[in-house]
Every structure is written in structure tokens, then in C-alpha cells.
């Protein structure tokens, strides 16, 4: 039985580890400035925790086999209540490992989240509602107009969905789209809002995730570094349509972005 246990535990360990090492299913390709640092730290944690995983499981299986009762009357189990020195050593080692990992990751966290977006970031207001994302751009005046909950009409799409108050002068040049366009290599200042319940704005390729909470307007930023289309998913249970609340982030060159903005503005006349 000891051998069976060893084999089963070792097999489970090796098979799991294989898929982890082979990266058969892996993080999506990173396309933001922060991705490299985050992925590097992920890999570090992965490597270290992976070693702990494999070593401890193998030890468990090995001990189960090695110290099985072979029926021999002469071998007695070791009568020992433990070893304080060993306790202290492995406690300290674990502490160093965990605290070390934490401080490494905290410096990345701090650099991303302890500062607001740069002053010339591209502003996009992202509003989540059951079950779609809408993106509002402030237009040439750089200011977002007022919205009123009474004016919200999700079935009308666009400006009606977010309840844009057209009587506010700042609203005149705001436009709302269903696809999020951003220029590459510029910092994007996302202002997250939610109309009804908590949603969460997740762009896997950008390593970007933030809950959109009703009653709050949360600022968060990222910098895309590669053009292309990236899927956006809702990552906080928001009702029956949670699984289909998705969108597209389209990263284009600065030129294409300016052209697109101009087209949207023209469409408003």
C-alpha cells in the first residue's frame, strides 16, 4: 500500500507539473507596459512555489513508502516529540520566502497603483451595465459632461445608455461607442463606473482588471504597447448575462486614433 501511495502521489505530481512546465495552457501574451514586470514576477513565484510543491509532494509519497510498517518486531518508530531548532529554521526560511516574494511584488504594485495617471493620458470613461460596456470619450474640450440616472435608457445604446445630459455644454463633444479605441504607447486613464450592480473590467492581454462599482468613479491606468484587437471580459458576477458581457479593445496607431476620433465627432453634427 505504501508503494501504491507513493506511485499515485508521484504520478499526480509529475503529471500536474508537466503541464505547468510545458505551459500547455498559459497566460495570454502580454501587450501592456506593465505586463513584462508582472509576468516576470509571476514566473519567479511560479518557479519557487513549484519547487516547494514538487519537493513536498515527493517527500510525502516517499515517506509513506519508506516508513511503512514492514511487520518487523525489531524496528520501532522513533519516539521523538520534535526538534525545536528545526522548527525555527524552517519557520524562518518560509518567512523569508513569503515576505521576500511579497516585497518584490509590492514594488511593482506600488509603481502601477500608487500614482495617478500622467497628466497627458488619454481619458476614457468605461461604464458597465447589465450586460454591456460603453466607452465615452471627452472630445476636444477634454471634459466629460454630466450624466443623469433618470436619463439612463440601456435599450437606446450609446449616449442614452449612460444617461448623458445633453443640456450640459461639456456634453456636446462627448461621444459614446461600443468598442474601445486607444492609441498605442500612450497611457490610458480609465474611469470606471457602473450603473446597476458591480461589474469588473478585465483585459487579459493588458494585465488590467478593476471592479466597476456603482456609486464610485474609479481611476486606473495602463499603457498598451502593441496594436491589435483584445477581448474585454466582465469579471464580477453581475446577473444572468454575466457570461456575455464582453467587448473589444482596439489598439491603433496615434494617427488612426485621431482619425477615428474626428470621424466620431463629425458623426455628432
Amino acid at each position, binding site marked *: 500500500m505504501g508503494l501504491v501511495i507513493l506511485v499515485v502521489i508521484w504520478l499526480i505530481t509529475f503529471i500536474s507539473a508537466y503541464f505547468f512546465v510545458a505551459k500547455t495552457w498559459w497566460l495570454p501574451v502580454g501587450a501592456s507596459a506593465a505586463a513584462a514586470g508582472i509576468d516576470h514576477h509571476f514566473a519567479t513565484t511560479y518557479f519557487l512555489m513549484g519547487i516547494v510543491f514538487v519537493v513536498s509532494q515527493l517527500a510525502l509519497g516517499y515517506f509513506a513508502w519508506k516508513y511503512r510498517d514492514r511487520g518487523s518486531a525489531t524496528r520501532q518508530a522513533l519516539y521523538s516529540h520534535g526538534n525545536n531548532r528545526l522548527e525555527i529554521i524552517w519557520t524562518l526560511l518560509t518567512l523569508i520566502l513569503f515576505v521576500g516574494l511579497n516585497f518584490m511584488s509590492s514594488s511593482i504594485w506600488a509603481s502601477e497603483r500608487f500614482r495617478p495617471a500622467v497628466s497627458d493620458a488619454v481619458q476614457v470613461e468605461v461604464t458597465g451595465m447589465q450586460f454591456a460596456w460603453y466607452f465615452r470619450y471627452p472630445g476636444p474640450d477634454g471634459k466629460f459632461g*454630466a450624466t*443623469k*440616472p433618470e436619463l439612463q435608457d440601456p435599450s437606446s445604446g450609446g449616449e442614452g445608455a449612460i*444617461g448623458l*445630459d445633453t443640456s450640459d455644454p461639456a456634453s456636446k463633444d462627448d461621444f459614446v461607442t461600443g468598442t474601445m479605441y486607444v492609441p498605442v504607447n500612450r497611457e490610458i486613464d480609465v474611469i470606471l463606473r457602473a450603473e446597476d450592480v458591480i461589474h469588473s473590467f478585465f483585459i487579459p492581454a493588458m494585465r488590467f482588471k478593476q471592479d466597476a462599482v456603482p*456609486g464610485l*468613479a474609479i481611476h486606473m491606468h495602463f499603457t498598451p504597447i502593441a496594436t491589435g484587437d483584445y477581448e474585454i471580459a466582465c469579471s464580477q458576477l453581475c446577473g444572468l448575462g454575466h457570461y456575455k458581457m464582453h467587448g473589444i479593445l482596439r489598439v491603433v496607431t496615434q494617427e488612426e486614433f485621431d482619425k477615428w476620433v474626428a470621424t466620431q465627432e463629425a458623426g455628432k453634427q
Partner: protein
Amino acid sequence: MASTTTTASANTARVLGAGFGRPDQNELDFAARLRRVRLGVGVALTGIVMIFVSYSSAYVVRQGLPTLDPRTGALVRDWLPLQLPNFLLVNTLVLLVSTLTMELARRQAVSAGFGAGTASRTETDRMPWLALTIILGLSFLSGQWLVWRELAASGFYVATSPSSSFFYLLTGMHGIHLLDGILALLAAGAASLLRKSATSTAVVVDATAWYWHFMTVLWVYILCLLEFAP
């Protein structure tokens, strides 16, 4: 009354020391039971404290929390302090007096419990404090109900404003707990009238007394929270 004090401290020594020495079998059981039930009440009160700790933190958070006004896009604080009806002070006085009568009832019951099976004592000795506490407790609750009616009359219901919500919540939760205490006292009173064991009655009265004192302290805390952090 001086003899009550010395007996009280002797009884305390018995309860704390229960398990050592060889006192009378009956008293020993009573002291041990008392100890165990008091421990239980202490544990229960710790659990109840957490309820009011969560409400207090919710209260403080809600007071200070800005919420987004979607019309202006600005963060606003919408907490309007509630004007507390003065009658609350009368109620507080009633509760404070009830805690005194409760303590007297407790000492009476406990010394009766220790003396059970020995000298006979008059039944009238046992009742006044307990009954008085029940009456005062019920008065407090009726008084709270009157306060609620007064608030409702001036337009403050549960959902009117965040501060009114918390007022009803805190006073309501306290009231429910106090009512449980009154029910326990009623049970003890009934048991006593039905000539049930003096020790069992004493255990119930003692436990409820500590619970009652806690409810008084809790009430004073709630009042201070509502008054000084409106």
C-alpha cells in the same frame, strides 16, 4: 445590609474556588454551576459584542463615506445627523435604575442559592427586586417604542435617511436583546413562584443579571455613539 456584603464576598470566594477544599456537596455543585454559567454568559457576550462592533464600524464608515452623485460626477457626503428625542434620556435613567434592581435581585438569588436547604426564609424576601427589574425593563422597551413613534411622527422612518436607519437599527437590536433578558427573568420568576429549585432559579437570575448589566453598558455606548458622533 452589611451582612449581605460579607456574604457576597464569601460567596464569590466559593465560586472562584469551586473545586478546591471540601464544602458542602450541595453548595459545591451550585458554585460550580454558577461558575460554568457565568463563563458561558461571558462567551455569549463576546459574540454579541461583535454584532455591535460591526454595526459601529458600518455606522462610522457610512457617516464618512462619500458617494458619487452621477448628476455632477462629484463625490458628496449625504449624512444628516439625526436629532435625538429627549425622552431617550428618561429611558436611559429607567435602564440604569433597572440595572441596580437587577444587581440586588442577583445578590438575593445567589445568597438564597447558597443557603438553600438550610434555614427557611420568607418568600417575600425573594420577589421585589426581580419583579421590579422586569417592570423597569418593560418600561424601557415601551419608552423606546414611544421614541420610535415620536421619530416617525416627525417624518423619520427606517429608510428616511442613513442616520435614521442606523438609529432604528441600533435601538432595535438592543431592544431585541433586552427583551430576551426580560423573558429569561420572567422564566426565573415563574420558576420561583412555582417553588422550583432555588439553585436553578439563582443560576438563571445570576446569568441574566450579568447579561442585563452588559445591555445597560451597551445602551450607554449606543447613546454616546448617536449623541457624540451624530
